[in-house]
């Protein structure tokens, strides 16, 4: 029992150490260092030594001294015996091992004697491992997008592994891709179109959705259940099956290549979600308030404006942000309906840019940064609203 626990503990922790060090090595490679090998055997072996000696030494020596000693030893071994690399790399390595040793402190001999301790160890390290891996896998493409937009075509082709940015160069040189896409490719105009379309969609959707959601939430009328289930069904219907008929009708009406056309389609596709989210919130507002308003001889217009809207600002803003993001990110309809560069949205403009094989990739990435940044900023800033909106936006689980 005990040996099994110790074995699992040491193997899992060593493997975790190896993963940490490997990710550090990948990041170091991307800064132009010449690291050719992960040295699995060596690092795994050293991880085993650290974890086992922690068990054996127990609490006899001060934890901090132990940590510093092992971290230094590991750093020395890796940096000066295997490969000689700059100081910052070694400092990073030192910090990683220090972090690792601080994590394995709590696993003493007594701890591993407990029932299920191997499972606990496994779960603990899986969590740590997950945090590191998930953040790496998710953030890496975003990191690459940002870095690529600051590089030059030649630098990218010569060494695709070199992610270092030269901050010493002139600001104009550093932000060259951004200047180019604004000047040559007229991105200012696309940003304007995208903003008009997205904000317009939000406003029109809210104007249509608030009364409808109020009616669904509060009033009794024939066809109410039918309406609320059809909202759900329509929400599931994909854009791709609507595209051909809309394309033909819009062509014949001359609505293609126009902001109005996009506004109509975006509003219609976001309305079901908006109504669904809002009616859920409106139902939670106490009915007594409206009854008082009815006694005050308010009509529905007054009720909605004086009671419902002021009370549901959080829900409305969450719907507004959600709709804004849908409209801003939308691609399919803008691909189908826009073929005149004068009416492109940002997404369509980037797709158009990439269609030309000769467009340097740093321009493409600069464009991508420009589309992505506003959405991510809005998301991070209003996360609370949006998360509740996202969960309410789909069917409640």
């Amino acid at each position: 029992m005990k040996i099994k626990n110790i074995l699992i503990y040491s193997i899992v922790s060593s493997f975790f150490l190896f993963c940490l060090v490997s990710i550090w090595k990948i990041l170091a490679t991307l800064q132009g260092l010449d690291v050719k090998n992960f040295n699995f055997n060596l690092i795994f072996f050293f991880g085993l030594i650290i974890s086992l000696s922690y068990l054996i030494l127990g609490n006899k020596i001060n934890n901090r001294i132990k940590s510093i000693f092992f971290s230094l030893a590991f750093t020395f071994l890796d940096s000066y015996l295997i490969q000689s690399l700059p100081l910052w790399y070694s400092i990073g390595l030192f910090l990683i091992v220090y972090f690792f040793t601080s994590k394995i402190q709590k696993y003493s001999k007594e701890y591993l004697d407990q029932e299920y301790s191997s499972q606990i160890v496994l779960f603990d390290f899986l969590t740590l491992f997950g945090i590191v891996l998930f953040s790496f896998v998710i953030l890496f493409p975003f990191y690459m997008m940002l870095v690529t937009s600051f590089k030059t075509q030649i630098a990218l082709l010569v060494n695709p592994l070199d992610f270092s940015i030269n901050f010493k160069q002139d600001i104009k040189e550093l932000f060259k891709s951004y200047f180019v896409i604004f000047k040559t490719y007229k991105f200012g105009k696309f940003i304007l179109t995208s903003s008009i379309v997205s904000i317009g969609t939000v406003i029109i959707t809210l104007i249509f959705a608030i009364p409808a959601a109020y009616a669904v939430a509060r009033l009794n009328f024939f066809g109410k259940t039918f309406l609320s289930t059809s909202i759900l069904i329509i929400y599931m219907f994909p854009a791709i099956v609507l595209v051909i008929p809309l394309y033909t009708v819009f062509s014949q009406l001359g609505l293609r290549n126009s902001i109005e056309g996009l506004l109509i389609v975006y509003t219609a596709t976001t309305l079901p979600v908006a109504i669904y989210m809002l009616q859920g919130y409106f139902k939670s507002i106490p009915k007594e308030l409206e009854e008082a308003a009815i006694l005050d001889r308010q009509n529905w217009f007054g009720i909605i404006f004086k009671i419902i809207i002021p009370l549901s600002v959080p829900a409305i803003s969450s719907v507004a942000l959600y709709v804004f993001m849908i409209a801003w990110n939308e691609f399919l309809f803008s691909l189908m309906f826009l073929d005149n560069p004068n009416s492109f949205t940002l997404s369509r403009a980037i797709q158009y840019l990439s269609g030309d094989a000769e467009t340097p990739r740093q321009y493409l990435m600069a464009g991508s940064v420009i589309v992505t940044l506003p959405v991510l900023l809005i998301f991070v800033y209003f996360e609370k609203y949006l998360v509740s909106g996202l969960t309410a936006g789909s069917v409640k689980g």
Partner: protein
Amino acid sequence: MSNKLSKIEKRTAYILTLPAVCLVFAIILFPIFANVWISFKEVGLKDIRIPEPRAKKIVKSISEEPVKIKIIYKLRNSSLIQEIRNINFEDKFPKNTKPIDLDERCIFKVNKIKCNFGNWQAKYRENFEIILKSTDGKKIEKKEVKSFKPKLRGKSDNILLSTSFTLKNFKKVLFENEFFDLLSTTFYYTFFGTVGSIIFGVLAAQMVNQKFFGRTFMRSILLFPYVGPVVALAYTWELLLDPNSGTLNSLLINFQIIENPINLLGQKYIAFNFFGFDLKLRLALTTVIFFEIWRYFPLAFLFILARLQAVPKELYESADVDGAGPIQKFTNITLPQITAVISILFMIRFIWNFNKFEDVFLLTGGASGTRTLPINVYQQGFAISDIGMGSAVSIVIVILLLIFMYFYFQLIGKKANEN
């Protein structure tokens, strides 16, 4: 009295919902029915433009005679395939001018000219000339003549409104178009994308449900792929996976894991040896599925996390008292609590993945074995320019979708009954 009130209530409700309902009907339900109509027709992309009679007006002065001026109308039928019937032409001239030797198809009244050009065949072209003469001997200003725009009106058939139908499109979709290959690719993509995103969603939710430093920060990072714009993310991945100068291939080569770059998005199959079995994996499709999982696991994560946080703490505490280990706690407490969410998530994501167009389109364009049904709608309708075929594929999607939805709503209904 209450009867009257409920009448008012009903009326109000209809007024409030009507605008939204009308818009949604026009843009979402109408196209679905229109798809059925179009799918039974032979319509190409070029047929849907309504043929228009057009005229370009050119004004030329005649050098010897300043009192005369020549107007040339370049007339044409904008359509290459359809006839326009009964074309009426109208234009204005400046006052005190008069056309001489007027074409017999035209009548001149005061300062207006009206012509009936009859029928124009497809591709019809004509240069129609009028010579204007000033009646008071003054010079005719070119600008003034130019300032009037000619008006043209004609009748033509709208191919979409005709009542001739054919089953050709469906025959082609089902029998000629490698339909089962298409269907299996779509299901492969949908199924593995859905299962993968749910598995990663469960893992991430279980992870964030633990207490650690920077937990809220972690939660927002995990949602980044879901909220970012597809276009930007797809192109970033394309660069990342590029075989020639992509970061991933360079890294793998640098660390001596592979020898030659792998074209992850452009290679249909990859053969590898797995415990002595020679296996063939659909490489590009797998890569696209991984992108799919990367982009959509956050949704599963969010739902499962919300559910996990609602699990009463007492359950875990009593499990501790009973001496249960972490794995037992996970299988006996956590999993039963989240199976309901997972089943609903599976259905939603299955339906949505089934219809996913943008991701595959941007990554591979449907090449190297990644052609799914939605991609086929686009390819038939716009790349091959056969609107009828595109619609027929859409109809197939809608039918499959209705079947999935039937199961989905049964599931929801069941859950509602249980509660």
